[in-house]
């Protein structure tokens, strides 16, 4: 997979939490990614980022379609985008389940910069 014409890898972010949608794209830009945040799975599916994204940073719990729901939907659409799940719930049992379902990584909020970069690195290598 190639990066964007800008030479930057496109990373989509789907999270109902506004502060994530505000902060994470800026950080990813600093790291040299192209980033776009969506407030819901439905919003993401309606955009062209479904095709463009080289990585999806996806919140687990969201109103309406949840992160895993979106994962299943993308698999159904054969849009296999590497997914890094992020979750604010401290439930450790969710991680192995998500990894088993094919997620690249599952990060618990708040996650460190290093953990995020490591996950993205893995995702890009998968991609």
């Amino acid at each position, binding site marked *: 997979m190639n990066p964007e014409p800008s030479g930057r890898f496109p990373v989509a972010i789907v999270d109902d939490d506004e502060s*994530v949608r505000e*902060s994470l794209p800026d*950080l990813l830009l600093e790291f040299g990614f192209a980033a776009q945040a969506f407030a819901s799975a439905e919003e993401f599916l309606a955009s062209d980022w479904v095709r463009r994204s080289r990585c999806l940073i996806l919140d687990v719990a969201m109103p309406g379609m949840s992160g895993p729901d979106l994962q299943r939907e993308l698999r159904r659409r054969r849009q296999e985008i590497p997914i890094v799940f992020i979750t604010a*719930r*401290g439930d450790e049992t969710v991680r192995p389940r998500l990894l088993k379902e094919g997620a690249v990584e599952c990060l618990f909020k*708040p996650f460190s910069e290093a953990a995020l970069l490591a996950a993205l690195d893995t995702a890009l290598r998968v991609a």
Partner: protein
Amino acid sequence: MAESAEARSDVPLESSIPAGAAPLESILCTEELHRRPSRAPDYEKENRALVTLVSALADSPGTILQTLAETILEITQCDSAGLSLLTRDGKTPDVCGKRFYWPAIAGMWNPHAGGGTPRNFGACGDVLDQNRTLLFTHFERRYPYLLPVIPAAEECLLVPFYVAGEAVGTIWAIMHNDRRKFDAEDDRVMASLGKFASSAYQALIHIEDLKIQVSEREAAEAEVRELARGLEAKIRRLVEANVVGIVMWNLDGAITEANDAFLRMVQFDRADLASGRLRWTDLTPAEWRDHDERAVAELMATGVFQPFEKEYLRKGGSRVSVLLGGALFEGSGNDGVAFVLDLSDQRRAARALRRSEAFLAEGQRLSQMGSFSWRVATDEVTWSEELYRIYELEVGLPVTLKVLRTRVHPDDVSLLEKMKMVERARGGGDFEWQYRLMMPDHSIKYMHAVAHATRDEEGQLEYMAAVQDVTARRRSEEALAKARSELAHVARVTSLGVMTASIAHEVNQPLSGIVTNASTCLRMLAADPPNLDGARETARRTIRDGHRASEVISRLRRLAAKKEADTEPVDLNEATREVIALSTSELQRRRVILRLELADDLPPASGDRVQLQQVILNLLLNAADAMSGVDDRPRLLVVRTEPDGGDGVSLSVQDSGVGFAPEDGERLFEAFYTTKDQGMGIGLSVSRSIIERHQGRLWATRSEGPGATFTFTIPLGQPATEA
């Protein structure tokens, strides 16, 4: 004599004499006596007669007048002889001297004894008027009332006699035919007999007076005897009725007679009495002897002793309280009678009264309940002892507003003041009043009074109040509230535990923002050239997310805080939103679709915000639990607030879950009743107790479709509690 006769001649005799009667002169022939040949005096016969008379006077004064009449008959050889006496009746003065009566007649007129003639219209009266001996002939011609007195008097010789110069009667001799005529000798003998008659009369009067005295005395004695018999009967009745103890005694200490009532009282019997063992000196316990001595002294001085209370020793040694009064018999100086009343019943009644008063006082002490009365007209205040104790005031101290002010809490209105207010405002009426006392050591007592207005027999208003020290109750209520709040805390922490993940989510979201923004900010500053605008923006977001996190934390802290119940105005909408803010992610996780229907302009309710939020959270989690197995329909949860149509607001949580069986409607609220695998089943029970403490109500209704609705209502404004 002549002068006296002249004086008497003034009496208008004629006026009383019927017209047509013969004049007095026509029936008088007194002068004839000295013209007629006089027989020789027979002194021997005369002396014999006088001796007979004198001895008769000595031997049988009762018949002296009859003897005198017979003597006249004998000496004058006449046909009838007798006496006329003026009536004397001290008791009827109008009768006194109005008539002559004939106490004794001898001879032919003897059957007429007991008869008599008028004082002022008859021969006897004429004799007394003229104050001399008169000789009448056929006086019935002038005095026709004598016509039936037969045989008629041919001649009648009448001689007056006197006592102490006063004419009191006549003696007379009558010839009914011409067999012989009275002469001067008859005149002399009659005068002589007249003197005797005077003596006889005096003796007789004396005797009669004596007789009268005797008979009067006899009558009086009979009356006394009769009275005594009556009295005796009455006294005997009194003695035998045994209503009171009656005892006869002497000053030596003996009891000579006693009725059964007395014997019963002291538990002795008749044999004891008969044997003389029963002595009043022995019946008296040592400490009462001085009372006896005083009574004896009183008896000596006055003959009676006033009733006094004392004790007797019974035969068995026990004591009996008695009232004792008595007197010495008149003229005895040593013997007397006394009545004895058994006071045991009165003593028992008094004891019972004292005991019930003591019970009341004890009851008041135990219940820390005092009583209080205020007579409005006299401003008279009466307190029970317990009330003094509660107020820690000296018993009996006059209760004034000033005194009350030393005890009643400065912020509170005393009961007496409240009574006065109610009396002024409503003229009486019952009420309840709660106030506090602040004791000198600044400790607080909580008082609860129930006041009742009554009117006495004169229609005067009187307040009576039962005043209870409810401090202990208040403290236990507080302790209970604390326990309840601790239980609520346990429940809260339990439900928060359920929400740990949800809460972590709420906290982790902003933390995540903070970390990301901080990283970005550092990178922007480290760039060459540094992106200052970007750094500024990310720093701003960091701060904002920090606030957001701290808000979550403080909301959490508030909800989890273990604090005493507080009453404040609570905006139920805002409280609901706060709870939902903490539980959104939990509800999301459980795929619950939340719909808020919060009323605009909902008036604030009164209550403890945190406790109410605890209830709301419980209801939300319950609803979510109820819908956990629902997959065939939206897991719709509607939270609705609205005015309840009365003086309160209501909040309802409607789910589309499994609902509940009609018979479980109330069991839902029982502690430890649960249909769930997890949880202690105390959520709804605690919720209901919280709502009830808010004077509200929490209930469950089954929905039309699937699911249940839990609703509570709580009142607006400050709950009506008076302090």
